[in-house]
């Protein structure tokens, strides 16, 4: 019956629709629900701290040198025992990453001699203007742990004597 033909087709289609109503959805309810990232995902940079709260970054600017997109701008200053940011001789007094430029290649991570800069999980990078695409140091620094003091710290003289802090068993 040529009249019934379309109805059958329609019914078939609806059946598919009906059936999928009972399948598990693949969509995430972003932003309420966030998709976990892969272990080696390269998201926004984080400037790490040591356990005592001192910053790992020594302001060497090798990340900026390695950056193929010229997205990083670093300026260094000297630590003193009265005002200490990092255990080395110098620290980054200015650290900026321009996320309009960053291509998340991770070369900065490779270049870092103190494992201070790590590309982590955060991928929520949206800006309303160019200026806010530049993340200053305060936005990149890892929060201070519960046990640790924020920087700058006052440290006893003679405790941090090395130009570049000695690395214990650096990871791969």
């Amino acid at each position: 019956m040529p009249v019934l033909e379309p109805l059958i087709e329609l019914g078939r289609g609806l059946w598919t629709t009906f059936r999928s109503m009972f399948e598990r959805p693949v969509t995430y309810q972003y932003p309420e629900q966030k998709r976990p990232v892969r272990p080696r995902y390269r998201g926004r940079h984080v400037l790490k701290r040591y356990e005592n709260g001192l910053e790992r970054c020594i302001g060497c600017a090798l990340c900026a040198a390695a950056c193929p997109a010229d997205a990083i701008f670093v300026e260094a200053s000297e630590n003193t025992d009265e005002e200490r940011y990092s255990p080395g001789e110098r620290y980054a007094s200015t650290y900026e990453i321009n996320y309009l430029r960053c291509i998340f290649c991770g070369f900065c991570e490779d270049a870092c001699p103190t494992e201070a800069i790590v590309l982590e999980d955060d991928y929520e990078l949206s800006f309303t203007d160019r200026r806010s695409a530049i993340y200053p140091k305060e936005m990149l620094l890892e929060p201070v742990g519960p046990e640790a003091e924020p920087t700058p710290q006052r440290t006893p003289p003679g405790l941090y004597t090395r130009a570049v802090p000695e690395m214990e068993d650096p990871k791969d």
Partner: protein
Amino acid sequence: MSKTVTLTIDGKQVTVPEGTLIVDAAKKIGVDIPVFCYHPKMQPVGMCRMCLVEVGRPVVDRATGQVVKNEDGTPQIRFAPNLMTACTTPVSEGMVVLTESEKAHDGHRAIIEFLLTSHPLDCPICDKGGECPLQELTMRHGPPQGRFPYEDKIHFEKHFPLGELIYLDRERCILCGRCIRYQAEIVGEPVIGFYQRGRATEIVTYSDPGFDSYFSGNTTDICPVGALTTADFRFGARAWELKAEASICAQCPVGCNIVFNTRREAKSGGRVVIKRVMPRQNEEVNELWICDKGRFVHHYTHSAERLSRPLMRKGETLQPVSWEDALRTAAEKFEAAGKEVLVLASGRLSNEDLFNLKALADGLGGRAVLYGDMGGGDLTTLVGVGQGTNLATLGAGDAILVIASDLQEEAPIWWLRVKQAAERGATLIVANPRATKLDTYASFVIRYANGDEVQTVLNLAKKTDKIGQAFAEAENAVVFFGSEGLGLEGSQRLAVACAHLLRETGHVGKPNNGLIGVWQRANDQGAWELGFEPVADLQAAFEQAGAVYIVGADPFGDGRLTLDGVKERPFLVVQEILPTPTTEVADLVLPAQAYAEREGTYVSGERRVQRFYAALPPYGEARPDFAITAAIGKRLGLDLEDGSAEKVFERLAVTQPAFENLTYARLAEVREQWPIVGRGDLYYGGTAYENRRGLGVQLVPAAQREEPVTLPEVQGEAGPRPEEDEWLGVPVTRLLDRGTTVLLSTLLHRRIGEPFVVVHPMAAERLSLAEGQKARLTVNGASAEVTVRVDETVSAGVVLVPRSMGLPLYEPMKVSLKAL
């Protein structure tokens, strides 16, 4: 010509003068032998052993004295059993040098490995990182992996200041001794030295303040590691982040070739600023060196106080206005004043600025006056040193007279080069009313009483004593005259006497002969060339003027001008880069660009025209001086060039005979210089830049152009003498003064110190004063608090008053000094 020697280095043949060292011979043909302790400007010591090479010499048959040949006819070569240091071995005929053989490579690798056993892993934060000879040579010759355990390294305290300008890192030091030898051999101020021995050896300073030398910054350039760094640039930027632009130092008349290293800076609001000043090679001017003033006085260019907008007086205050309003007002006022316009410009300005200013003054029929208190520039244009003069070529048989100038304080690099000429055997005559550091190297020291300057020169010209004879008989002779203890009139008279002395002894109109003015500003010579002259009574000139246009000068700050008692003040336009006491009293302030922000040329004291380039973007709305002047001129209907500095210079070259045929392109020409230095290999000559932007051209003095030269008559005495029961204050120049631009380099404050005066110990006693005591100095009604210093070589009755130290004294005059 001396004998030459032909040898083979890595298969390449080279012919060099006898006595050349292997390392230099190799450099000439582009074979880089690695070095640390060797520096082409210093005696070799062979300490670091980095330059080990294989050296073979032809075998000579003892019986016949002939070179033994191989079967194929080539000379038989016998190689020394051990590697030899290329830096201490002179070349010999037929020598064969291998720098790339397995054995030589083993030597290089061994030395690098040894050096790295005590060198810390500071590269990521070291100021030398990126331009470090040790880094570079480790990459090229070092072992792939170190065999020395990290925990066995010796550690020293970091951040060890040798003085407030130079920091030492003893861990990084490889004990090459370049800095110590530089201070001892080149500067002659051995204020640093080795202490202890073996692995415990370290560099120490023997002076207080630490590393007390005007040349200390140069040691950071030749340090092959990051052991010596400047406090100024400490952690300022990484070497590869810096941009480099050629310039000329504007701190004194030597005209040292420099490079401005610039970078964006957060604390300056993201503007590009000068991060450091580096020497640029010019073997005829400053070789590879600059003084600490030139190196550290650059902070004023990015001072937050800089003038960024035109300001106009509205009642008591200066209010920002548009350029259009400012230029229109200036033009109106100048037009109204007409012939009564006074243009007062200083030698801080470039030739292009001065040319336009002169044209403006001439166009209005006004007066163009050079700001300053030293005369004699008219004479240097006549009998100045001839084209082709190079102080480095003066030596035995030549004579140099330095009169009324403490050369180290006024022009440090000239001091260095005069000293070296004396060490090469030149007869150095130092004539000064008190002892100066140059006395040590002088063949003859003449100590005259203040006021006897002209007489001293006339005595020399009589050739009756051995000093006069030595000067007259010298093959070449150069006279440096300054303004120590003299004002405008005195220095003018001294210059005339010197010019006569030179002409009478036949020392004019040829290279390495003539007169050099030790000016107070970088381009005073240029201003004289372009027709500017100072006036004796500046205050009168100011009061008579209808409108005054002060450019690049601070006469109110220096006490040269005052508004006190001025009934009818002229309209005052001040063109400046920084606020000064003069801008405070101005009716109109025009913000000018610092010279680092624009192009231009200076004429050095040796009359070398040299170009500087724009290293920084302009500050705010500031414009170049020549362009501002041209814009005013155009509103007055004058045809002034405002397009570019180059265009102004083109006009200048057409109208000024001395500048004939000069173009920017010619000034930018470079020739190969020895030693070969530069970014290609930093280990040989240090981090001084090679010259790619021009060696400059020396102007031809009238005497050399064979034009008739008419010298003015010699006149009486140069200055007054102290009279009984009164104190004669005389001005002297100090390198680090309290000038507006200098003071903005806070690092130098301790070296600058407080205002002081110098008197003879007996004079101090009479005044019940002692060294270091505070006193009140009164000059012309103005008074200031000063610290008293004593010097037994100062004449009795004379009080030395340093210029630009906030003390209003610019010519010999009566002063009073009372203990506080």
